């Protein structure tokens, strides 16, 4: 049980931190939708209104060709002489689009980019596509691994608890028989075994959380060095509500394992 929840919880920690990392990247990230040079000035305003109305969009700003040119020139600084002679309309007008914090995950960013590309008047959309897609793929893989490894181990834990309950039932067979003969309600006979399973599950869950916490504390420095993406403080343990869910999951598996064993045995 502890092992199963340890593996499950481990994947959850990785997943949680990657989501946070993706959101962190997203906060500093903007999408740029470059506009068709032939787009009439009267068409820009409605298009900007439509884009700003996307549920994921926090802010959308029109950047004119002139403004883009000025910005580019400033970014070149002392080297700006290299673009002397070029026309100020060499750069296309664009929209700078910032997303809401809830929509900064890779899947949402990719979805917004897809819709922008489908808009008439948008010729190109740029965003750190490669990274977000890789991250998205990694998150999908971790989600799958969590359910495959964690799920298999949780099912195994269910059987292990069931077998433990079977042994407990065998050890107390005489007592159960007497209880049945004197007319004890089924609930009164089953309850101690269910509670036993529940406590076992809770103990397993607490143990797994303690192990994960200890392991994370020991390895966080190493991880931050290896990944180079987080500071030590940035690698976080599971949120309290996720810990509570893991405890509830442990209790549920313990109780369910005992319940199924009782149904087979009594």
């Amino acid at each position, binding site marked *: 049980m502890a092992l199963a929840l340890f593996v499950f919880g481990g994947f959850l920690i990785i997943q949680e931190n990657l989501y946070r990392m993706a959101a962190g990247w997203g906060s500093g990230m903007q999408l740029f939708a470059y506009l068709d040079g032939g787009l009439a000035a009267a068409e820009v305003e409605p298009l900007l209104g439509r884009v700003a109305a996307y549920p994921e969009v926090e802010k959308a700003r029109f950047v004119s060709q002139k403004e883009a040119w000025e910005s580019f020139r400033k970014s070149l600084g002392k080297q700006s002489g290299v673009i002397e002679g070029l026309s100020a309309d060499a750069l296309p007008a664009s929209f700078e689009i910032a997303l809401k914090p809830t929509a900064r995950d890779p899947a949402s960013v990719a979805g917004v980019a897809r819709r922008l590309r489908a808009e008439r008047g948008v010729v190109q959309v740029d965003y750190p596509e490669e990274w977000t897609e890789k991250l998205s793929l990694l998150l999908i893989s971790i989600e799958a691994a969590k359910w495959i490894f964690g799920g298999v181990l949780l099912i195994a834990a269910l059987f292990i608890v069931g077998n433990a309950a079977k042994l407990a039932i065998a050890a107390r067979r*005489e*007592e159960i*028989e*007497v*209880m*049945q*003969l*004197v*007319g*004890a*309600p*089924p609930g*009164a006979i089953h309850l101690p075994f269910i509670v036993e399973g529940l406590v076992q599950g809770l103990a397993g869950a607490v143990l797994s959380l303690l192990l994960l916490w200890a392991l994370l504390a020991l390895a966080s420095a190493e991880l931050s060095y290896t990944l180079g993406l987080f500071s030590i403080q940035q690698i976080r343990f599971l949120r309290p509500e996720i810990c509570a869910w893991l405890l509830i999951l442990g209790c549920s598996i313990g109780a369910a394992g005992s319940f199924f064993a009782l149904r087979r045995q009594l």
Partner: protein
Amino acid sequence: MIQLFDVSKLYPPDHHALIDINLEIAQGEFVFVIGPSGAGKTTLLRLLYRAEDPTAGEVIVNGRNVGRLPVRGVAALRREIGLVFQDFKLLPTMTAIDNVALAAEVVGRSARESRRLARSLLGELGLAGKSGAKPAELSGGEQQRVALARALVNDPVMVLADEPTGSLDSEAAEQTMRLLGAINERGTTVVIASHGAARIGRLSARTVLLDGGRLLEVAPHVQEAAL
């Protein structure tokens, strides 16, 4: 009180423990179910408290078709029946008083009330000084009296006893039978499965003779059925 209609019990593949049994036992009767080993006595008793289901026929106890009772119904039925066994079926880790109180607690009585009832019954059965003893510290006769106290603690309408004197010496056996007779005198139906009818004092008893799973004879009430 107890009615069996065309009851048969077959243990696969081909052991017919009971064959077409028809029997009625009225409220307050004292009945011996007698017969040789393998006659079907224990099976008949087990059908009455739904430890077994009949292969055919209907078993009616207190107006309820026992074979159709759900699990909760079986528990409720058993709370109306006191059961006594040859091997006592006492829990070895519990004291005499706890063994008796357990049966009272399962019907919802408080622990305090259950122990009060258990103590009172053990006193009535001459075990006042043994309530703190564990079964291993008691003689066979004393253990059977503890089992009787447990059977009576919920004031059952009937007591079913399967070879209650089978593992007792003659003195303890006689005492147990006298106690069962006294229980019957208070209006409780008593059905005893035994190799032979024993002396039960001044009560009238009826004998039901089984052999090879068939009911051969139902003897009328007799005063002091003899072995």
